[in-house]
């Protein structure tokens, strides 16, 4: 049975979403089912389309960052980072050392927070109730830290073009000394709780497999691509910021199934902590903001910058016409491209698998619809 066969008259069409609890936002998946088996699936997006790209054209460069906060609303800082780097590259700004480190530390923390949300919600998707509370416990620790650094729990607007808004608070180092070991322990606890559970393995091993060739063809990136066995990470294939200064690992899966996608993310959190630890050691006091004119006015030109967000290849394409507003901003969001592979992943799946597969590619609808 293939996913694109035309539905039989006996098949039942079911709307999964936009109000379904497991679609992770306002996502609608229309499925045709034959008993419990999915015969055909058709994703519908756009319920959260706010026209961020168009809105950006009317804002000044520094204001655009606030719109980027609202794209991937569980990994806000990673989105801010992409836009800042894109503009800085266009303007050829040298960002001060310290702000590089601050950006890396906070982005990696945000990656952990995002993966922790994934972990918890994925637990719910497969029907386990406890993981979400463990996941949120760890996420909460990070959010608290963010609150003390940026003043906000989610919509930070902390990375500015040319650096970061202000230096870290005085107690930052002390807090990190407590936070990192607890996070490590928390990740291990989460790992023990779910990864080896016989039932969890039965639900995720071999479900929703995709080959490396197919994944690349669909433009799948991030953990979902690495789960298929491809060693591809923007941080190493096209290094940005200061990621080439750290020694860390890229988790790579084998089968490209749900379990691999899940575990790649779990392992990534451990690697993020390694990066943060090294960054904390290397970080020196100093300036956090480059000397810039008050109004950002990049030269004419265009820049396309890719970054590795928790969900994959998050890229920003900025076209500048030399004024203080961007002429065009195009955001290439990882969830958008990853979601295209959903129909392919859903072939031969059961209704219950649909939830598990959709959860495993970890979409954020704010990012898909923009």
């Amino acid at each position, binding site marked *: *049975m293939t996913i694109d066969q035309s539905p039989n*008259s*006996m098949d*039942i069409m079911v709307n999964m979403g936009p109000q379904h609890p497991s679609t992770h936002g306002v996502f609608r998946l229309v499925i045709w089912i034959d*008993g419990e088996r999915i015969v055909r699936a058709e994703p519908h997006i756009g319920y959260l389309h706010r026209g961020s790209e168009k809105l950006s054209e009317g804002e000044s460069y520094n204001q655009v960052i606030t719109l980027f906060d609202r794209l991937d609303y569980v990994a806000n800082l990673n989105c801010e980072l992409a836009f800042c780097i894109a503009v800085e590259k266009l303007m050829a700004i040298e960002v001060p050392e310290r702000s590089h480190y601050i950006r890396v530390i906070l982005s990696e923390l945000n990656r952990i927070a995002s993966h922790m949300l994934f972990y918890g919600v994925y637990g719910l998707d497969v029907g386990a109730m406890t993981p979400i509370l463990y996941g949120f416990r760890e996420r909460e620790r990070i959010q608290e830290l963010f609150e003390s650094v940026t003043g906000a729990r989610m919509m930070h607007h902390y990375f500015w073009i040319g650096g970061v808004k202000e230096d870290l608070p005085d107690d930052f180092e002390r807090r990190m000394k407590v936070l990192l070991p607890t996070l490590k322990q928390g990740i291990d606890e989460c790992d023990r709780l779910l990864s080896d559970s016989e039932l969890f393995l039965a639900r995720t091993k071999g479900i929703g497999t995709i080959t490396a060739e197919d994944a690349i063809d669909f433009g799948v990136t991030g953990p979902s691509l690495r789960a298929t066995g491809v060693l591809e990470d923007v941080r190493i294939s096209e290094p940005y910021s200061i990621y080439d200064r750290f020694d860390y690992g890229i988790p790579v899966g084998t089968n490209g199934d749900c379990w691999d996608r899940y575990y790649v993310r779990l392992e990534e959190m451990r690697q993020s902590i390694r990066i943060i630890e090294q960054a904390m050691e290397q970080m020196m006091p100093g300036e956090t903001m480059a000397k810039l004119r008050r109004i950002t006015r990049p030269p004419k030109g265009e820049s396309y910058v890719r970054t590795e967000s928790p969900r994959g290849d998050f890229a920003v394409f900025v076209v500048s016409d030399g004024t203080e507003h961007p002429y065009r901003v195009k955001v290439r969001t990882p969830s958008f491209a990853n979601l295209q592979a959903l129909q392919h992943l859903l072939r031969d799946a059961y209704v219950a698998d649909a939830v598990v597969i959709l959860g495993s590619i970890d979409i954020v609808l704010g990012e898909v619809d923009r």
Partner: protein
Amino acid sequence: MEFSSVIFYIAAACTIGGAFGVVITRNIVYAAFALLVSLFGVAGLFLVAFAEFLALVQVLIYGGAIVIVILFALMLTRIEDFEHLTDNGQWPLAVVAGLGIFGVLLIAVLGTSVRTGPRESVGVRDMAEALFRDWAVPFEVASLVLLVALIGAVVMVRAYGGKD
């Protein structure tokens, strides 16, 4: 009126009313529920006749399993297509068949001398001995027939179902 006769009349009313419901209603799911009522009525009749074991078997097998399987089949098909039963040309045949069976039963009942008066219920042990000692061979034959039917059903479904 005795208590047992009250139960008998209630059960009999359920049986006949349910049977009529199955025939009369146009909604196929309602028909299944009416069948359930009728089957429960039969269970009540067994109870009045002190055949508790049979009554419970009636509830378990017919009320629990058979009706649920019927409903299952109804729901797997698209309900909007079959919501209302349509008349077809088979009803005269059905009347003839029904009257025929009724006639046979009537002859059988009238031809048997019925003992009335208080009766003891049959113990489980007696029943088990009857089934597994005195009538062991017919019992095994019956189960063999059921097994054949089961395998046949599986084979037929496989033939239509494709690769799995």
